[in-house]
């Protein structure tokens, strides 16, 4: 009897060790799914996680993201590890059809084998299955054959695997692995070429993360450009931004808000430090005049002499939070003085934020305090152009003026009542 209970105890402890290991593996897979931000595209607001159904516009038509829960009928429940791997790193589904490259498999290609396995374990064993049929795509029939994607892949998709750069330390290489791979930062921040391909997938190319316009948002340059990029950001600044969506230079907006809410705020300090170490190593794409604060605007606003075009509108609509100095109250309210988004040659994000405001920044489930309110109802195109031009020419900022036509175009395309599908949901 004693022996028997002893056996039972040993068995139980062995079982619990095995269970703990399985739990470790799915926990690692969950972490990787966070790092890859799979949920951002494979869910719809208010829907079940990973059940797909998000419509995305591409240059050839609208596609819908798929159900990646382990439901055997409608999801990936019948996928073997090899099937999963082929979809993830090569963009080929279980039935052999090529995925559209809205799925960032060209980035995921760098993932390591055991990370793919951990991700697979998580999706198969920890994600609850959801029975939800995939939506059809509406790509016109003459463009719908999938075989050209194989050609596209041959031309543009990098071959799988990650080769560490021996010229850098382990931390940098970890950062490269995350940024170029799971993080798929380039999907938004790298300019795209004639076939909508990202121009580059790695640190060696100056186009990588050089900033890009995607559907009326200008995803910032993440290189060391001193005015329009992250050239003045320290590694600690980058870490704070990815963790909370805020730092003393800027705050996140647009779909970066979702990246922070679903992905980067959950990354470990070590991984964030690795990403920062990697980003600060990317040289500037061009020499820029560094931003220097000029107090003239603040002096004029403070003395009530706001005669520059847009100054009075700024005083009435913006100044209460962003201040006469344009310095605002970072990290809670972002400065306009020296902010890379304000200095960006492409004013799309600035216009878009003024028209449409920002969403709450949620870090690990905790929302921040202040929203940028929307002004599309209060300000005309001309007024927005004047305000934005004023911001871009004040406090030492030197960026080109903005026209009312540019504002009108973005206003039209971001009309909230439209049923137009937005590429990569970047609205």
């Amino acid at each position, binding site marked *: 009897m004693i022996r028997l209970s002893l056996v039972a105890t040993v068995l139980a402890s062995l079982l619990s060790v095995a269970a703990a290991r399985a739990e470790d593996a799915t926990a690692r897979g969950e972490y990787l799914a966070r790092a890859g931000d799979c949920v951002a595209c494979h869910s719809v607001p208010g829907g079940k996680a990973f059940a797909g159904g998000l419509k995305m516009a591409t240059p050839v038509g609208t596609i819908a993201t798929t159900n990646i829960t382990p439901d055997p009928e409608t999801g990936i429940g019948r996928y073997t590890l090899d099937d999963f791997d082929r979809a993830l790193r090569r963009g080929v589904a279980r039935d052999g059809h090529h995925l559209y490259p809205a799925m960032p498999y060209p980035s995921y290609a760098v993932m390591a084998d055991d990370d793919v396995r951990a991700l697979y374990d998580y999706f198969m064993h920890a994600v609850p299955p959801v029975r939800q049929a995939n939506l059809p795509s509406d790509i016109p029939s003459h463009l719908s054959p999938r075989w050209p994607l194989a050609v596209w892949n041959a031309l543009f998709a990098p071959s799988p695997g990650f080769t560490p750069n021996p010229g850098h330390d382990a931390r940098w290489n970890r950062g490269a692995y995350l940024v170029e791979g799971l993080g798929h930062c380039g999907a938004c921040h790298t300019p795209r070429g004639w076939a909508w391909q990202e121009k580059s997938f790695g640190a060696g190319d100056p186009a990588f993360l050089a900033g890009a316009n995607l559907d009326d948002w200008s995803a910032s340059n993440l290189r060391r450009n001193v005015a329009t990029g992250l050239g003045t950001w320290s590694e600690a600044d980058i870490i704070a931004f990815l963790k909370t969506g805020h730092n003393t230079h800027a705050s996140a907006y647009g779909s970066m808000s979702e990246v922070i809410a679903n992905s980067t705020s959950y990354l470990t300090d070590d991984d964030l430090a690795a990403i920062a170490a990697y980003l600060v190593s990317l040289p500037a794409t061009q020499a820029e005049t560094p931003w220097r604060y000029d107090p003239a605007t603040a002096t004029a606003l*403070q003395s*009530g002499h706001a005669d520059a075009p847009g100054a009075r509108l700024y005083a*009435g609509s913006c100044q209460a939070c962003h201040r006469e100095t344009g310095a605002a*109250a970072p990290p*809670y*309210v972002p400065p306009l003085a020296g902010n890379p988004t304000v200095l960006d040659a492409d004013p799309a994000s600035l216009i878009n934020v003024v028209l449409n405001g920002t969403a709450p920044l949620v870090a690990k489930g905790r929302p921040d*305090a202040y929203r940028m309110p929307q002004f599309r109802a209060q300000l005309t195109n001309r007024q927005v152009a004047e305000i934005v031009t004023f911001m871009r020419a004040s406090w030492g900022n030197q960026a080109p003026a903005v026209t009312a036509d540019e504002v009108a175009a973005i206003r039209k395309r971001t009309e909230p009542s439209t049923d137009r599908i937005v590429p990569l949901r970047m609205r």
Partner: protein
Amino acid sequence: MLDKVDVLIIGSGASGAAAAWSLADTKMRILCLEQGDWMQQSDYPSNGRDWEARQFGDYATRPNIRARPTDYPINDDASPIKVVNFNGVGGSTIMYTGHYPRMHPSDFKVRSLDGVAADWPVDYATLEPFFAENDRMMGVSGLAGDPAYPPKTAPMPPLPLGKSGARFGRAMNDLGWHWWPSDTTLATTEYDGRAPCINLGHCTPACTQGAKASTDITYWPHAIRAGVELRTRCRVREITTGADGMASGVIYYDADGKEQFQPAEIVILACNGIGTPRLLLNSASARFPNGLANSSGLVGKNLMFHPYAQIYGYVDEPVDSNRAPPLCLWSQEFYETDPNRDFVRGYTFQFGRGVGLVTEAVSSAAAGRLPWGADHHAAFRQLANRRIGLSAICEDLPEDHNRVTLDPVLKDSHGIPAPKVEYTIGANTQRMMAHSIARAHEILAAAGARNIAVESPILNGGWHLLGTARMGRDPAASVVNEWGRCHDVKNLFIIDGSIWVTSGGVNPTSTIQALALYIADAIKQRLATLFD
């Protein structure tokens, strides 16, 4: 019938939250009923560009103007000072300025010192540890060493004085009068999950940043984690009593408007100096025909407001006057009784910054400082961002004719009789206000201000609701005893500003909460013999 609870607290504001948190130590089953909702910080006016406009709407300080479904009407026609409050989790701490002076030791002994009103049955020394505990829980910023007080320290450094505060400081130095950086509940560093103040200046209509302590973000998270239940949208109609004359529970209307009976072993009232007498008067029965716990006849009597005299002017340079919290320093030069003056007791000066641009335009247009026509903008430039001001919080003495009764006609949305306020400013207080206005003119002159304007008393200034169920040892001259228990009903406690014997000359929240913690502690000390 609902399950019986050990402790039922009515009201989740300054005092209710503090007592709930303190009593949670006992592991008793504690329930708080709140007639308002949990607040959404992202909905606060400070999160939008229309924050000034909303002070005339859903964030008006007066419940009669705000008229949210969670508010109840108050007939204050017969008062030159209108009642202001807020109803929601956190109560009026949602919409206060966070100015946080304590009462002075002398305030508890006015009969002995000045021959007026009555002494309190507690003193400053008794409350001192509860003041300190409350400062820690609410998160107080301040500077140690104020000569107006016994030694005390604050857990956070004081607010910056800013241009207007520094200007006032210099003026007071020139005059040789006391001033000190204010104690406030505005966080100046990260504190207990709250972010520090970023000086947007939109404090009074609630703080999106969470820098301003309101009990929904200070006491309540701790109390709820400790097991206290908080039920919102529950408006209590009356406290019921049993055959033994003890409180048996309350009848309330739940979120769906359904009548509920909630039995309880102990009932604690934390509904402020108007809500508490209203509820006691609405709880009249055959056994308590004049209202519950009212054998003294003092329930609703001796209402004290602190009439405010406000004086402001304009300086010749921008002073960031609508930046940062409205109050950053105080003076208690004229706080204690001086036999050379024609009044007893005294007042605190609280030094204000300016107002928002819309408020400046509206108030200046109304006051005739801002003419229409060609010079309109030039005139506005000389006003905007240049206002500095101060107000005197004048001690109100308890007077029988200042009272809260039930309005014979007016009812709230549940048909519960609404309170009626009758109030006139006493002669001693009027002389005090005149004195404060004269001193304020001297201060503003020393600070270089011109175009002086006076608003006295401030119309929408009935923040401090005190004295309507006063504490004392004599059951004939007080409603509750020296530790908050009603003389008439031995399981009924009152912990809000109603129990104040006199009003002092300071914003009362700090002292209200210290008293609530003191009473909760008295309950904990006496659990075995609580009803003896």
